[in-house]
């Protein structure tokens, strides 16, 4: 009796809600939308994504693999007493094997972290703090990622280490003789990234590894931009520590990994204390869905590495050919050996930010995302000897697995159009055309 009464009330209330308010809500929605989105051609506006160096979209196959672990298999992988935990743990171990297989490591040598930044922190700070009685000197390069540079600086300022920041050559590569000359008896660690995220230069990782192993110095490399795009074999290349990132290889954000060599064994002081998960190096419940996503992304990358590389190489060539009508374009990086998916170009007499603004239909970046908040031009470009003016006018194009030829063509055409338009407006360009050396000008200043 009561139940049917409530049902009647419920139905009436539900019906009342539906009829009276639906019309109102539809009206509200259209008002809201029309207030928000002004020009009609701006509706559903989404630029072409050409910033693959900053992050990559999640591969649908990775998403498919991750989804059950978000919805159904939610057990804590460290719960050893029930099937929920066992299922999650089994999938995490499978992910570990997939990552290890990509870099020719043992699955026990992989620990999951929250990303390459954390991996770099653990590697640089953790290694140095553990071995601080035997070592006092770290060698790194001036074009490392900010997390490596900042970790080194922390050690320098607060813990009394000495750091050598090697200057790269003009093409971005580290000179091996300079590296060897920097070795000291108390050098313990060399940290040089495999592929730079701003200019795409690839270091000779195998040669650096061999040099370090010969001198009994450990070698750490930040390979976030390298894995899945170029073959990395940690055993062949004598790498002791290596950082990986999920969202650079079409995996999820918020996960990364650190390869820690077992033979010869590398010990680290953990940054995060806790229950001793991940061999005591990184405590905390694993985000197993993210870890599984990273594993699947690595598996796909291993399968499709050659195809992706060829795809990016073709797109890169196509792009550069299509903009070849532009003059005074500087290629920042290593033209022969650099990665073809990261293209960093400077356009003389064009201001980078205004070019980016003009190219509103394409998502690009000037300099790396992590330094885009600062107003200074990229420190990487400065390290490779780029002029301050050219550094200000640099744009980074990131090509990826999902970039199409149409997108590249559109970007190239727009780029040519806007560079020419901005140069037409620029008095500096006129002076450049006339052959005046812009550096020789004494700009009047108000003292």
């Amino acid at each position, binding site marked *: 009796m009561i139940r049917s009464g409530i049902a009647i009330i419920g139905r009436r209330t539900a019906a009342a809600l539906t009829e009276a308010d639906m019309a109102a809500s539809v009206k509200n929605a259209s008002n809201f939308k029309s207030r928000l989105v002004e020009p009609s051609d701006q509706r559903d506006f989404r630029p072409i994504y050409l910033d693959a160096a900053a992050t990559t979209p999640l591969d649908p196959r990775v998403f498919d693999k991750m989804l059950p672990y978000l919805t159904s298999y939610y057990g804590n992988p460290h719960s050893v007493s029930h099937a929920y935990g066992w299922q999650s743990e089994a999938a995490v171990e499978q992910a570990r094997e997939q990552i290890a297989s990509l870099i020719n490591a043992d699955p026990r040598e992989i620990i999951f972290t929250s990303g390459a930044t954390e991996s770099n922190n653990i590697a640089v700070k953790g290694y140095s703090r553990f071995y601080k009685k*035997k070592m006092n000197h770290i060698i790194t390069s001036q074009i490392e990622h900010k997390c490596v540079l900042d970790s080194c600086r922390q050690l320098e300022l607060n813990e009394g280490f000495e750091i050598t920041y090697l200057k790269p050559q003009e093409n971005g590569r580290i000179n091996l003789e300079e590296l060897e000359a920097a070795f000291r008896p108390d050098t313990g660690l060399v940290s040089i990234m495999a592929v730079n995220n701003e200019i795409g230069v690839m270091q000779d990782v195998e040669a650096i590894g061999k040099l370090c192993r010969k001198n009994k110095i450990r070698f750490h490399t930040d390979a976030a931009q390298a894995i899945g795009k170029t073959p990395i074999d940690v055993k062949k290349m004598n790498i002791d520590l290596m950082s990986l990132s999920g969202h650079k290889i079409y995996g999820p954000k918020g996960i990364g990994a650190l390869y820690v060599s077992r033979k010869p064994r590398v*010990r680290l002081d953990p940054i995060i204390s806790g229950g*001793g998960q991940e061999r005591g190096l990184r405590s905390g419940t694993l985000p197993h869905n993210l870890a599984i996503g990273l594993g699947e992304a690595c598996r796909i990358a291993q399968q499709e590495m050659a195809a992706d590389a060829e795809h990016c190489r073709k797109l890169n060539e196509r792009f550069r050919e299509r903009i070849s009508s532009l003059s005074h374009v500087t290629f920042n990086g290593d033209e022969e050996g650099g990665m073809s998916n990261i293209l960093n170009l400077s356009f003389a007499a064009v201001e980078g930010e205004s070019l980016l603004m003009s190219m509103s239909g394409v998502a690009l970046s000037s300099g790396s995302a992590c330094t885009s908040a600062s107003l200074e031009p990229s420190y990487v470009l400065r390290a490779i000897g780029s002029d301050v003016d050219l550094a200000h006018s640099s744009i980074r194009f990131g090509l990826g697995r999902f970039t199409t030829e149409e997108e590249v063509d559109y970007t190239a055409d727009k780029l040519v159009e806007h560079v020419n338009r901005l140069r037409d407006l620029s008095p500096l360009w006129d002076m450049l055309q006339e052959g005046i050396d812009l550096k020789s000008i004494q700009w009047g200043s108000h003292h």
Partner: protein
Amino acid sequence: MNRLTRTVLSRLPLKIAPVRPLSVTIPKKHGDFEWEDPKSPEDVVNVVYQDRDGIEHKIAGKVGDNLMFLAHRHDIDIEGACEAALACCTCHVYVETEDEHWDLLEEPTEDEEDMLDMAPYLQENSRLGCQITLTKELEGLIVRLPSATRNFWVDGAKPEHH
């Protein structure tokens, strides 16, 4: 044995049917060897244990003694939860006389390294106590116990030997 024999034997009173022990050798417990005293002065190996409170214990062990069981005999505070089965890291010690004795110790096996990885407050001169066997060359070995093992309780309580 056929069915008839089995039936007959099972119906016999116990003093006729043979009672077979499980073990055919004399049972010996782990750590028993360390309870034997050194047979001669040449056998003696002097070691020093520095425990968590900083107190030094000078112990006279003998050649072939396991460092952890020797400590148990003399009531030194090393926790040996797995009793030398290489399944835990609670007998973690620091080899203080690194310069003299580190190279004389046997290379740690991969399993020992794995267990050591999980020990808190790991240092470069860390080893598992249960993997160190005394030899004559290790005369004068000094080992220090870390301030806590994996089973640490913040109120300072220590697990008992079982």
